[in-house]
């Protein structure tokens, strides 16, 4: 088997297996899995709404998938993308409101910097805690998620809400901070679909993350730390520096969700806007085999499911959009337990048993 085929095989098996398990569940509750799956996936292909919304939903997932990927490559598990993107989205809106008088040429880059730097800052905190005190980044990122949500909710409620507004959201950002929706450039693609320039930024980030990790010294050192910290340290790499750097880059990528949400879609900070983007990012990175190209493919799959969920809710009798999260959970479980499939294959075809957990 070539390397590429091998890389594609297990994610593909995991997805197919998850759909089979999901199909059995749908049968058990008395619906037709083929009808449900056609609603779930078929709607994503319609032009322009299906494709437009799928790409729009894929945008935050590419960012968070890349964020989790950079952490994984350094041997770190960033469960904190959710908190990082909340802090960043709020900071983006704050700049868009506070500096409303700037021209677009200044304000938009300024908002970008706010999103990236605030995400990087929130991501660097667990990095510093791990590098300095050795405390586990998984626990700290989970805790920081809750702190971030409470913090931005406080600022929104007490300082930036429009008085009398029943919804927990900030005032609108300056029109100078808006970034263009893609409908502006594509004939026949309506501007009401919120797909915007942030999608192209997400694709650019995939390329940049690839170049950073595989073509720069810093990226090499991050990967060396991830694959064998002891050897890396022996080779003269400062593990502590790599941990902080990787967490900051990871946070910055998660923070860019704020660009899509605030500058391209809602034009304000809306409390509780994230549809578990940070946690789905874990699924995206894992299914995408921690490679930027894989992240794009996995983000598209999960975005299509997310969009299709609405149709399943509306047009099938028993199945609800919860099937999307069920499928997601089963997919990650199967991806995590890769050894399960190797064990299964090894038992079916004697002699092909792969070594479990080499």
């Amino acid at each position: 088997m070539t390397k590429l085929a091998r890389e594609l095989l297990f994610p593909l098996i995991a997805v197919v297996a998850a759909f089979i398990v999901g199909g059995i569940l749908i049968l058990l509750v008395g619906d037709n899995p083929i009808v449900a799956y056609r609603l779930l996936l078929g709607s994503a292909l319609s032009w322009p709404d299906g494709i437009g919304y799928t790409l729009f939903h894929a945008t935050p997932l590419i960012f968070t998938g890349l964020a989790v990927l950079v952490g994984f490559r350094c041997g770190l598990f960033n469960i904190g993308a959710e908190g990082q993107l909340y802090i960043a989205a709020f900071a983006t809106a704050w700049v868009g409101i506070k500096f409303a008088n700037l021209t677009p040429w200044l304000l938009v880059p300024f908002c970008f910097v706010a999103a990236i730097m605030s995400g990087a800052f929130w991501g660097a905190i667990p990095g510093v805690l791990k590098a300095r005190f050795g405390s586990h980044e998984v626990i700290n990122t989970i805790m920081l998620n809750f702190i971030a949500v409470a913090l931005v909710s406080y600022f929104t409620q007490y300082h930036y809400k429009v008085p009398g507004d029943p919804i927990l959201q900030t005032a609108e950002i300056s029109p100078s901070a808006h970034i263009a929706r893609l409908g502006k450039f594509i004939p026949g693609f309506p501007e009401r679909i919120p797909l915007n320039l942030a999608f192209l930024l997400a694709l650019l980030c995939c390329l940049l993350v690839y170049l950073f990790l595989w073509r720069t010294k810093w990226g090499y050192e991050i990967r060396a730390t991830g694959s064998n910290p002891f050897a890396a340290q022996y080779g003269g790499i400062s593990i502590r520096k790599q941990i902080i750097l990787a967490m900051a880059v990871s946070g910055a990528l998660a923070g860019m969700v704020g660009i899509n949400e605030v500058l391209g879609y809602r034009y304000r900070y809306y409390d509780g806007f994230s549809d578990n983007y940070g946690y789905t990012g874990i699924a995206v990175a894992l299914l995408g085999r921690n490679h930027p190209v894989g992240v794009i493919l996995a983000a598209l799959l999960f975005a299509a499911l997310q969009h299709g969920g609405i149709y399943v809710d509306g047009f099938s009798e028993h199945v609800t959009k919860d099937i999307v999260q069920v499928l997601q959970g089963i997919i990650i479980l199967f991806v995590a337990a890769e050894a399960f499939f190797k064990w299964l294959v090894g038992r079916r075809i004697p002699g092909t048993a792969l070594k479990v957990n080499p």
Partner: protein
Amino acid sequence: MRDIFTLSLIASTIRLATPLVLAALGGLFSERSGVINIALEGKMLAGAFTAAAVTYAADKSLGMGNASPWFGLLAGMIAGLFIAAIYAVSCIKFKADQVVSGAAINILMLGIPGFLSGAFFLSSGSTPQLPKDHLLPQSPVVIALAILALVAAIWYVVYKTPFGLRLRSVGENPEAADAAGVSVSKIRYSGVLLAGILAGLGGAYLSIGQSSLFTRNMTAGRGFIALAALIFGKWRPVQTLLACLLFGFTEAVSIQMQGVFKLPSGEDIPVQFIQMVPYVLTIVVLAGFIGSSRPPRALGIPYQKEK
């Protein structure tokens, strides 16, 4: 501070701490055996949904009446056990990454209850309301006594029985335990399954004790607060209980104060800052600023037997 410690606040602290104590003590068994448990949240959700659904069904279809919540409770524990079994096989037999599997369980359990209630109750994510007399006992005195008895029992099991000794040794030094003839995977299976039962119980108390139905994502992060309490309690039963009471107290305060917490000096503290307390404390303790909180040495590392 006079009007903070009212009787009703103490009662509500006990009620709110109960699901946390149950889940955190479950997490203790799992983590002491060396298996990280970020899936407590998912197991609580499984317990909460199953308990509410079975309580409803036991009354409607079997005519169990007042006995139905006890069936619900049992079913909630079995649901936690079932989810824990999936987690255990994935982490122990197939040596999957424990954090990844835990995250998978949590995402899966965000979906399953809604999926099933959509199918069975034709609702979007909640079970039908249960009548008042079909709920678990809620007297704070009864609950407090039950919790104290449970903590005492768990303390005894962890520190005074051969099983407890094996549990701790497997979490600290699986190689040595293995060499001494202890089956590392058997002990870890027991730890993870016990965690499932207790977290399921905690979830059940949430839906058919504190509340009277299951609603979408009703745990709202309590599994993670339980994990935080376990860390804040340094992986020890009594300290974990105290941590849960503290975190239950912050929750009770933020509910009773309805948005603002008045300091004696007359200044207001927004409720969001009170909600942050458990999480900030956990980070501070884990970093070693208040004493040191050291996890079991083999926590999170799959055990590979030497061939």
